[in-house]
């Protein structure tokens, strides 16, 4: 990652990625031909078998384009495809793929891009190469060429017999080459940006597919959220029923017995009183733990930054918290963020073998961003039974995303992003 390259550096770098896109045109053309052939075979049924795997291959190829374009132009291109339906029969799959407008836009891309790239991203690179060729001609290649009776047109300068004897031609060629190189570097960034826009227009999601994807995501995250809160309510109900409620019943019974014993056997009454007091203390302790599990007091009092600090204080590892939150996110987001961090910290203590943890909370770009870094052994995965999937689902209800970076040997970095506003601090 480079930090804000200078304008000169941008100019120097811009002409070259386009040549890569130009080369990528070769497999693109081949795949395009194969694809058209497969479509041609739909009539005899073979195409129905061939089109789906080829479509997947095409998507792999356009993904390469998307990644490269995102990387070199800074224009983020999302995948536009409608989600897969697992386990559907092949002909349904064939129809579904053909109904996805992104499939046809990919096809258009494959047909048009090898030509478009020539006039956009690849043009500066080609100009510079041509310019360098001009210099070489002016330097020695022109002499060599004419010596062996060859000839060449350099734009409008005919490189032929006597090229070397005419200094104006030689100088002209060099000058032309210089102009071409200058043009290449001058228009490089602009043409690369134009190519980025072209890529985004064709390879990115359309409004309609964006909405479809969004609806699907919302449906999923809503059902996750509903399930999670139903499970949570069941847990709370059970805990209350088996804990505090039962203890209060026992206390009531003890008090009733004490009433009877007060005159007859004060000694025994005293014993029962002590037991009743113990019951009430235990009921309190259980209620306390329960409430803490629902909504920790520090979170309610002070917000997510201080609540995470309080977590850090209670944690067995050395946890360092830095926070830069000028306000408080809404209560539901705060709560989701807090429990996510709590879960990640529990993981770090259990699985990572870390001794230090760093937590950073900030609000940037309209989202609450939290990163949790530990110096453990790394190698964590989302599906390693670490509950990270659960966190993902939990914050998914708020359109939050979780990213895990955990190379073997560490450090492990878990990043959470929850889109939210901030309420001014009271």
């Amino acid at each position: 990652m480079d930090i804000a390259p200078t304008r000169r550096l941008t100019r120097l770098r811009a002409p070259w990625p386009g040549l890569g896109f130009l080369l990528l045109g070769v497999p693109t053309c081949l795949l395009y031909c194969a694809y058209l052939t497969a479509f041609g075979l739909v009539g005899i049924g073979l195409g129905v078998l061939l089109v789906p795997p080829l479509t997947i291959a095409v998507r792999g190829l356009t993904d390469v384009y998307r990644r490269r374009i995102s990387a070199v132009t800074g224009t983020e291109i999302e995948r536009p495809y409608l989600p897969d339906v697992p386990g559907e029969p092949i002909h349904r799959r064939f129809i579904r793929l053909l109904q996805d407008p992104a499939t046809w836009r990919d096809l258009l891309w494959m047909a048009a891009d090898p030509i478009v790239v020539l006039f956009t991203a690849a043009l500066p690179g080609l100009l510079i190469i041509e310019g360098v060729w001009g210099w070489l001609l002016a330097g020695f290649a022109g002499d060599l060429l004419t010596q062996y009776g060859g000839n060449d047109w350099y734009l409008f300068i005919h490189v032929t017999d006597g090229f070397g004897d005419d200094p104006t031609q030689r100088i002209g060629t060099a000058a032309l080459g210089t102009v071409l190189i200058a043009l290449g570097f001058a228009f490089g960034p602009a043409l690369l940006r134009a190519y980025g826009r072209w890529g985004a227009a064709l390879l990115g999601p359309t409004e309609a597919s964006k909405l479809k994807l969004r609806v699907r995501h919302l449906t999923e995250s809503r059902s996750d959220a509903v399930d999670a809160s139903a499970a949570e309510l069941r847990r709370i109900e059970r805990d209350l029923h088996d804990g505090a409620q039962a203890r209060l019943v026992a206390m009531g019974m003890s008090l009733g017995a004490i009433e009877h014993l007060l005159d007859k056997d004060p000694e025994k009454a005293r014993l029962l009183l002590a037991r009743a007091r113990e019951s009430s203390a235990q009921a309190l302790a259980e209620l306390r733990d329960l409430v803490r599990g629902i909504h920790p007091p520090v979170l309610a009092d002070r917000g997510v930054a201080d609540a995470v600090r309080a977590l850090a204080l209670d944690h067995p590892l050395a946890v360092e918290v830095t926070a830069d939150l000028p306000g408080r996110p809404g209560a539901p987001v705060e709560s989701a963020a807090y429990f996510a961090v709590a879960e990640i910290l529990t993981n770090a203590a259990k699985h990572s073998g870390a001794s230090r943890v760093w937590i950073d909370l900030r609000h940037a770009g309209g989202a609450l961003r939290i990163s949790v870094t530990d110096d453990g052994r790394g190698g964590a995965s989302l599906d390693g039974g670490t509950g990270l999937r659960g966190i993902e689902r939990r914050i998914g209800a708020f359109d939050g995303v979780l990213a895990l970076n955990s190379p073997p040997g560490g450090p492990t970095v878990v990043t959470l992003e929850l889109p939210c506003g901030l309420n001014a601090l009271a």
Partner: protein
Amino acid sequence: MRVVLAEDLALLREGLVSLLEAHGCTILAAVDNGPSLLKALVEHRPDVAVVDVRLPPSFTDEGLQAALEARRRVPGLPVLVLSQYVEQLYARELLADGTGAVGYLLKDRVFDAAQFVDAVRRVAGGGTVMDPEVIARLVARGTRDTPVARLTPRELEVLELMAQGRSNAAIAQQLVVTERAVAKHTANIFGKLGLAVSDDDNRRVLAVLAYLNR
């Protein structure tokens, strides 16, 4: 002892008032919200304030904030904070100015009236009283690769009681050993933790808490 009390639940407020009065305290004011508490504290300058953490109007840590603000205006004003939960973060904030005369207890400790009143007296006398739960968690956290890990189980017990603000005599009574033995343990503990030994009970408590709170 002249006491100012802040608790928003009427039932509990009455209970605390009668409990403290039964043990010979004078209640100067019993209030139910943050702003009145601050006013009462600055106005009456009580020997000790007994404060619930969560108070109206905001129902957040209003009581704690009012108590801290009062201590900023009246340095060393003795404050005993009561809470349904003990939070390390709040314990830290109470201890931050290092002058002592603070307490932080779970509300359940009121069940044992004698011990509770003893805590109020110790805070009024400039001592520091921390809930056993706070100390237990601090010690538990400190037992990884720190000098605390080098303490014997017996020394850990003494450390916890010491951090709660008990005197050597009280610790001896609790652990059923002689005071001489306790003195020896404390000397060992201070040696292992690299703290300067002090005869003053309260300074000793603060040193231990500061150490555990790093």
